[in-house]
């Protein structure tokens, strides 16, 4: 998002740019519109990251060849790699743009950085994609603890530190979508109607494990597993293990998928015997 008021600082306070880096940005004016590439030459300082460069472009929307253009549209919020908003494909890899430092991504003069929107989600405009399907998936698996209400009913259950650590790690998933971008089984679905039967993806499977691991969240385990036994559930995973390699929060996604897979099998057998 071009909302940061970080540019145009008077020279007394602003560091002097040390070099320029070329950004190649894949642009698109909206759903169904053609895409095009635009290049920008951006002055950078040692503390520059992709966000500060996009801010600079917003203030100076002129391409490398001198063409007047519009500020680039993208999504971001926290700038601390904790909200997940600013995910995009940078030099071919899905990651957060706020934690992508220019001196690391493009250390040499003349280096080029390409920015593209994630390919597994419908583009809204330029680098901004619509990830609502991910949140729908969380709804599908009832990713919550079904509390009795907000009245004062005392503390929750006690918990061993190891269990807390495990849940905490799973609970740091910021719904960024990197694991979905990398997954060969996760495909782009433009229409909301098609989300229901499409693969939910690693992040949602892992959240099912998180809530099944909570003593009260467990109450809904059966419903979660029912949802994941159907089309688009855990059986759609081809075990390619790409997801776990790209998760910025190092969430053990393949462990989660295996755990859900086992639980689902047990649940399915139980269901067979119960005749439901």
């Amino acid at each position, binding site marked *: 998002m071009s909302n940061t008021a970080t540019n145009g600082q008077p020279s007394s306070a602003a560091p002097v740019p040390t070099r320029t880096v070329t950004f190649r940005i894949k642009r698109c004016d909206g759903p169904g519109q053609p895409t095009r590439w635009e290049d920008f030459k951006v002055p950078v300082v040692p503390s520059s990251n992709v966000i500060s460069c996009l801010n600079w472009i917003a203030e100076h929307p002129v391409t490398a060849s001198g063409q007047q253009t519009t500020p680039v549209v993208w999504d971001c919020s926290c700038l601390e790699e904790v909200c997940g908003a600013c995910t995009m494909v940078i030099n071919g890899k899905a990651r957060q743009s706020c934690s992508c430092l220019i001196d690391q991504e493009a250390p040499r003069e003349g280096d080029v950085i390409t920015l593209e929107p994630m390919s597994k989600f419908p583009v809204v405009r330029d680098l901004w994609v619509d990830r609502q399907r991910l949140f729908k998936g969380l709804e599908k698996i009832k990713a*919550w603890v079904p509390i009795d209400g907000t009245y004062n009913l005392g503390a929750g259950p006690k918990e061993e530190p190891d269990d807390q650590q495990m849940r905490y790690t799973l609970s740091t998933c910021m719904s960024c979508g990197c694991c979905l971008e990398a997954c060969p089984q996760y495909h782009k679905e433009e229409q909301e109607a098609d989300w229901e039967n499409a693969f939910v993806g690693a992040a949602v499977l892992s959240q099912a494990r998180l809530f099944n691991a909570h003593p009260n969240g467990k109450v809904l385990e059966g419903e979660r597993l029912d949802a994941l036994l159907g089309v688009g559930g855990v059986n759609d995973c081809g075990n390619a293990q790409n997801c776990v390699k790209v998760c910025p929060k190092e969430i053990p996604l393949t462990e989660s998928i295996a755990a859900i897979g086992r639980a689902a099998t047990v649940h399915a057998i139980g269901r067979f015997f119960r005749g439901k």
Partner: protein
Amino acid sequence: MAGNNKRVIVVGGGLAGLAASIRVAEGGVPVDLFSMVPVKRSHSVCAQGGINACNEVARQQGYSEYQHFDETLYGGDYLADQGPVLEMANWAPRIIDLLDRMGVPFNRTSEGFRDLRLFGGSLFKRTHFAGATTGQQLLYGLDEQTRRFASEGKINKREFWEFLWPIIDGEGEDRRCVGIVAQDMRTMQIQAFRADAVVMATGGCGIVFGKSTNSVICTGGAASRCYQAGAWYGNGEMIQVHPTAIPGADKCRLMSESARGEGGRVWVPRKKGDTRDPTSIAENERWYFLEEKYPKYGNLVPRDIATREIFDVCVNEHMGIGGENMVYLDLTHMDPHYLTEKLGGILEIYEKFAGADPRFTPMKIFPAVHYSMGGLWTTYTPGDYQPESPAGIHNPGDESPASTAVGQGMEFGAHNNMMTNIRGLYAFGEVNFAYHGATRLGANALLSCIFDGLFNGVSVTNYVLDGVAEDQGAATVSAAVFDHAVEQEQAKQAQLLATVSDSGSTDPQFNPYTIAGELGVEMTAASTVVKTGPRLEQCLEKIKELRERYSQVKLGDAAAWTNQSLSFTRALGDMLIMGEVIAKGGLLREESRGSHYRLDFPDRDDDRFLKASVAEYNATSGESTIMWKDVQTALVKPKPRTYGKVEEKEPAREEAVAASGS
């Protein structure tokens, strides 16, 4: 219960907005929840440290809810009305229990109880935490419950919608808020929504200062729009600055103060503008200014002093590294293994965002705007605890003068709790000025946000069900009122879009991003750490100039689809007005209190200024006037704030460590 098509609108999906939505929906009134981002990505995720509450262990050591209340008032230098703070402290343990039941993974002791840590402003362990991302975990807990209510149709989430204006109808006694105008940030459709009450839960205004620790959405634009529509704004000048942040090219990220606590040394090169690699600068060419100015305590001076000194060296003496606003925080003289063991996590954050390993390269840091104690002015109904005379000093183990029963500090469910001066318009969370006075204690922010939602959410429900007469309901208001509000916003937008020209927006005079950058630099220099009358007057002049330039601003994008430049430029106009309120309050408050430090008035002046500054906007002239309203001090007698003296006795490492992450 609510069969009469009453509805509530909540604007903002951080902790305060989500807690309010859940509570109101649970009370049987449907909620429309508006947020500029998917609520899971709200700014609350950035809070690291924890959330304060009295707990059994601390209680058996002599701590109490009452003491938490007392500490919060003392920390805030007595600028907050006392009743609401008492109620908040009393509710804190109940709030922790509720979050626990929601499944928030609070850290645990080996026996499985919730673990606690020490935090600034208290000698007791009263801060609950979930790893290093407590705010994120609390937000997720509430996000999950919101998703549950949404799946049952009780909360209607409108994400990627921007609040544009509150709709206010009626005159005098009948004046009330009946809905909002909002815009879909993708389709750019502008639409009016009816509601019998509107809860603003839109957070702080850090972006007015350019780079801060706030998320990019925290422009203060929504609060400013309510202010321009007639809501009062309280204590705008009370802005909290965190002493050690990592200045990035895009934002400032917190660096825990424990780095100083563990032996970090603060210095700048003796030679102005020296750009050499710090490791090649000899010891006698370094100016350890804290050690020199404060030989006794050196780098362990209290936070506010550290903040002011670093600021002074850079901004006034221009001695910052390479002429920039930065100083070194140096750990390289210490054993790298020891550092990894003691400070591992925070060193990783530095390395990720600054790209250098602090064990071998001195860190570059600078103070950064962190939190706004000021916000929309709100009122409340006092509770049952009404002592004959205000209590004196409260020591650990003393019997609490007030009980912890519901409604001691504020009447539970009273219609006007945290309502602005406009009936039906509420302010919850950081955008509410009520709880933190002149400075916020670490780990109290998350508490005040959730408390507002849970406790005062009931007030909203009661108000719409019992406080809105049938013939006053939003459903009875003529469509013309809503159409008119939409037309006004459309006209504003059309005016901005008409400024787009083929020659582009590159003239820095009228470029919105340039104007915003200049506003940020000016506000940070004049209206944060050290203020003086003349400098604030200059700042107000500068804002006048920027407002003049803004009136001729040139937009760089004419798109009718997902136009972020339009959204930002519109908010810039609102930020300029917010900046004026903040600077003006600072100019007129001729004293020093909490975060507000006036070099020309270094002492607290209770006679003149134990009062809230309350700004009112004149829509015709575009000017802000400041009124002074008495602060309620009937529960506790204000005493001098002497943290400094305590620290003189013992500038312990623990102190700096305890203050970290707030």
